[in-house]
Each structure stands twice: as structure tokens, then as C-alpha cells.
């Protein structure tokens, strides 16, 4: 029904996932994972599962981002691979 919107969301999902995998800076990777979660929540809402989308937006884009940033502050920014 909304296939144009879903196509744009899929393209941005692929871009954020590839950047999160290929980035050397772990902070960039965690921010990209947060954006991936938010786009995934938008896709769930487009499919009609509003409760699942709300849970994904709150947990994936809110609390997981905070916990990942705290974990990066306590270890290191850079990755070897």
C-alpha cells in the first residue's frame, strides 16, 4: 500500500547497517545502530504492528543507545577490524 515509503525505509536501513558494520569508530557504530532501530520501528508501524513498533522505538533507540555509549566510555573508542 505504502510501497514508496517502505522502499525509502529499506534503502536507509541498508545504509545504516553497512555504516555500522564498516565504521572504525565505535561511537559512530552505536549511533548508526540507534538509527537502525528507529527505522525498524517506523517499518513496524508501517506494517500495522503499532505496539511492537513502540517497543522497538523506546528500547532500541532510547535505552540501548545510552547503555552502549556508557560501555564505550569505559572501554575504548577504536576497533581493530
Amino acid at each position, binding site marked *: 500500500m505504502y510501497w514508496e515509503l517502505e522502499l525509502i525505509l529499506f534503502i536507509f536501513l541498508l545504509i545504516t547497517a553497512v555504516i555500522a558494520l564498516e565504521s572504525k569508530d565505535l561511537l559512530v557504530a552505536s549511533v548508526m545502530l540507534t538509527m537502525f532501530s528507529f527505522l525498524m520501528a517506523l517499518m513496524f508501524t508501517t506494517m500495522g504492528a503499532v*505496539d511492537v513498533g513502540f517497543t522497538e522505538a*523506546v528500547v532500541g533507540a*532510547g*535505552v540501548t543507545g545510552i547503555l552502549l555509549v556508557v560501555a564505550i566510555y*569505559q572501554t575504548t573508542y577504536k576497533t581493530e577490524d
Partner: protein
Amino acid sequence: MTNRSPSPIVLLGTRFLSPYIMVFGFYVIFHGHYSPGGGFQGGTLLAAALLLIRIASGTKLAQLQFKDYLARPLAAFGVFIYFGTGLLALLMGGYFLDYGELPIPGLEPAYLRYWGILIIEIGVGLTVMTVLTLIYDNMVKGEDYA
């Protein structure tokens, strides 16, 4: 990480933003019967409001808002609310977690189920909020980011 000075702009911004997130969390819990939401989402929003203050203002100021030794008893109390509701329905002659048998006088079973769902959502929200705050407090123990 040692030479960072506390920024008053960040502190003021989070102090402005945090109560609204908290009110929205309570709205999500108590309005979960009519709109999307429920105990899990509302509890996570409340935990996000607490964690914003904890990140921006440091440990000493955040202890005034929510003491970290309160987290574990409140999490256990949230589980106890859920389990106690089910056990009370079991003792009153129904099945386990059958809200139609709860001993609240003057209500028909459909509205008893309504209030039973609300009670267990409060329990779930309390547990999720305190557990997420507990995880953050244990991760940053001994260091201060303000």
C-alpha cells in the same frame, strides 16, 4: 575523560526535558487500555527520564531523585505485585492469574479483568524501570560523567 567540565546548558536541557518524558511514561502505562503501550514501554520511558538526569548531572545530584539502593527492593516488589495478583485470584477460587475472581466488591467480572490488567501493568512498569536504572548504576559505579 578527566578534564571534562560540567556543562550547564546540557544540565538545564535535560532538567527541562526529563519531567515531560516521565509524564509521558505514566500516560503510556495508565492509558494502555485505549492506545498502544503498556507496562514495558512505559517503564522504559520512566527509566529513560531517570537516566537522562543521571548522565547529565552526575551521581551526587541524581541520588536526590532516585536512590540506587531502592532499585533492587522495588524490582522485587514489581514481580511480587504481578505474582501476588495471580496468587490472590488462585486463592479466591479461580485459576492462576484469572482476574475475574479478584476480591474487589461491587464490580462485574469484565471490569474486574480491566482493573486486573491495570494492576499487573503497574507491576511490570515498576520492575522494568528499576532494573534498567540498576544496570546503569552498576555499569558506571566509581566513575562520574558530569
